[in-house]
């Protein structure tokens, strides 16, 4: 045998280069533009795909090894959680409602991210980004699966988590996260990378997976903590991919700058609007609070995002236009969104409630400029009404923003007593928006957003009832018909936490877990 052992082990950079480069070829029977039809129409100019630098040099062998290790840890914890009735260790059953929003509103986005990255992982003509996107596509399906597995333990005991696949396509507030991702996956591959890889992963997911999941730990939810951190450990890689992608575009051609800037402005704003749901989860749905939404915002958006935009300034990128507004809005949005779900809690797949005195004091302390002045009087009134047996539900359908699809609940940045209304006329039709940001997104691409599936309008058009329902029949109850179409059971999955089956069961089971009678 004269096989020689190599003198020296290859370094990480060389190993990575060997495993990710030179894997493809210039096609000759077919034109490259026919093989990769999607990577030019957005106007992004790429001259040398080999200039793509991979920040994490994770090769497939290492990837499988470490992902397998993460899975082993996660599933050991899920088993322990199940065997020890871990769900009874949480602070109180109100917390589970945050998980209901997570499984119905966030986990399906992980699956959509999987589809999106699979698509762009096919359509970039450079092999570097293709490899990176394919790995991310595998991560994303792992996230959706591990989240579903982890939360299935709760689904066995609590209401509202039974049909997330159906609900994401139907339920009014879930159209907010769904339309966000639909917008991204129907864009070209470069815009998708800015939308998801950069704005969502880099600027925004920290706010979901770091302080919120740390909050889950604080509330005794081992299962969510583990899937959350397990997912976020992949996000660190995804964030660097998003950042690399943006640098790559900006370094390839100066003409790319205005296109990239427009996408950053758009997707930062789209993300900010979607995250208002997470703001509410942090300030209202964690019985034990780690930090306020505003504090989390300041750490993860203002400080970390700020450092990032300072760094990108060398390419001519300016901080997203919306930053001035969101700096004002951060003191309001969680309260405004919780007010919304409280009053439309009759058509939600989770329970809502009014904060206790102690919780209101915490909110006052965290939001000294806004809570007592604008929100405490409303909440106090609602509590009084509830005590008199008149728990407030809004029984009329709200006006929705054509772009973000959130009801027009947000106030003018400089006047928290006035709802912000914006509108545009396009080809003889009126369109309405919650903000300058959403209006501008529409005005840039009206042909895309005229197609929006707005739940309120769809209900009026008669598309949100089961096929055998006759809306003209005497005594027809549209709300009941919509709930039935959502596959929600009135009085069980929806309405106030006080008096709910979840509340009763949790109290009874916890009693059984701590006593022998």
């Amino acid at each position, binding site marked *: 045998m004269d096989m020689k052992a190599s003198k020296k082990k290859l370094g990480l950079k060389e190993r990575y280069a060997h495993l990710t480069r030179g894997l493809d070829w210039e096609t000759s029977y077919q034109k490259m533009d026919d093989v990769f039809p999607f990577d030019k129409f957005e106007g992004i100019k790429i001259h040398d795909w080999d200039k793509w630098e991979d920040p994490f040099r994770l090769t497939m062998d290492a990837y499988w090894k470490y992902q397998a290790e993460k899975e082993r840890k996660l599933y050991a914890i899920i088993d322990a959680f199940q065997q020890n009735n871990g769900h009874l260790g949480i602070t109180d059953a109100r917390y589970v409602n945050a998980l209901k929003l997570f499984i119905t509103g966030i986990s399906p986005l992980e699956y959509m991210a999987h589809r999106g990255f699979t698509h762009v992982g096919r359509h970039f003509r450079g092999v570097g980004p293709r490899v990176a996107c394919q790995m991310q596509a595998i991560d994303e399906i792992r996230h959706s699966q591990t989240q579903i597995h982890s939360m299935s333990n709760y689904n066995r005991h609590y209401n509202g988590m039974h049909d997330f696949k159906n609900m994401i396509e139907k339920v009014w507030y879930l159209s907010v996260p769904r339309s966000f991702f639909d917008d991204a996956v129907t864009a070209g591959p470069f815009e998708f990378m800015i939308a998801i890889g950069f704005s969502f992963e880099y600027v925004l997911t920290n706010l979901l*997976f770091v302080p919120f999941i740390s909050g889950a730990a604080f509330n005794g939810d081992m299962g969510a903590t583990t899937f959350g951190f397990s997912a976020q*450990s992949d996000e660190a890689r995804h964030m660097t991919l998003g950042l690399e992608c943006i640098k790559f575009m900006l370094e390839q051609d100066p003409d790319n700058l205005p296109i990239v800037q427009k996408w950053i402005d758009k997707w930062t704003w789209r993300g900010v609007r979607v995250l208002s749901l997470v703001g509410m989860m942090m300030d209202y749905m964690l019985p034990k609070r*780690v930090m306020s939404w505003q504090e989390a915002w300041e750490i993860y958006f203002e400080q970390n995002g700020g450092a990032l935009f300072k760094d990108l300034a060398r390419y001519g990128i300016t901080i997203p236009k919306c930053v001035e507004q969101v700096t004002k809005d951060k003191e309001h949005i969680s309260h405004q969104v919780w007010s919304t779900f409280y009053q439309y809690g009759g058509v939600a797949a989770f329970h809502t409630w009014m904060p206790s005195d102690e919780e209101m004091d915490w909110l006052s302390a965290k939001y000294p400029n806004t809570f007592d002045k604008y929100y405490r009087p409303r909440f106090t009134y609602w509590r009084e009404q509830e005590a008199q047996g008149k728990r407030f539900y809004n029984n009329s359908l709200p006006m929705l923003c054509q772009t973000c699809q959130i009801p027009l609940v947000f106030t003018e940045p400089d006047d928290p007593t006035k709802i912000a209304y914006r509108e545009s006329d396009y080809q003889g039709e009126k369109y309405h928006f919650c903000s300058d940001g959403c209006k501008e997104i529409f005005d840039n691409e009206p042909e895309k957003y005229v197609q929006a599936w707005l739940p309120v309008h769809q209900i009026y058009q008669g598309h949100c009832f089961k096929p055998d329902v006759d809306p003209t029949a005497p005594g027809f109850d549209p709300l009941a018909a919509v709930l039935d179409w959502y596959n929600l059971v009135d009085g069980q999955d929806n309405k106030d936490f006080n008096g709910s089956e979840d509340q009763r069961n949790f109290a009874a089971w916890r009693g059984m877990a701590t006593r022998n009678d």
Partner: protein
Amino acid sequence: MSTVFLALQTNDDTRPLIEAILADNPQAVLREEPAMVKIDAEGSLVVRRSSIEAILGRPFDLQELQINLISLSGHVDETDDEFTLSWAH
């Protein structure tokens, strides 16, 4: 100067990592939160394999970081010996 950060889960695997990172980066600030730590540092933060191995008393592959890493910010430069976060170019 902008701040970079590294967030890690708190467990037996990460204790020696955190110790090594704090020793190698005098500018680093440790924030302890439920189930996690966040290490902030002005300008840059370096994770050195040799420092971790000295504490662990066994060989350590820096990519093992992946298992307990929660999040980070800054540009990543990764070699066999060092994992660096910075806003430098």
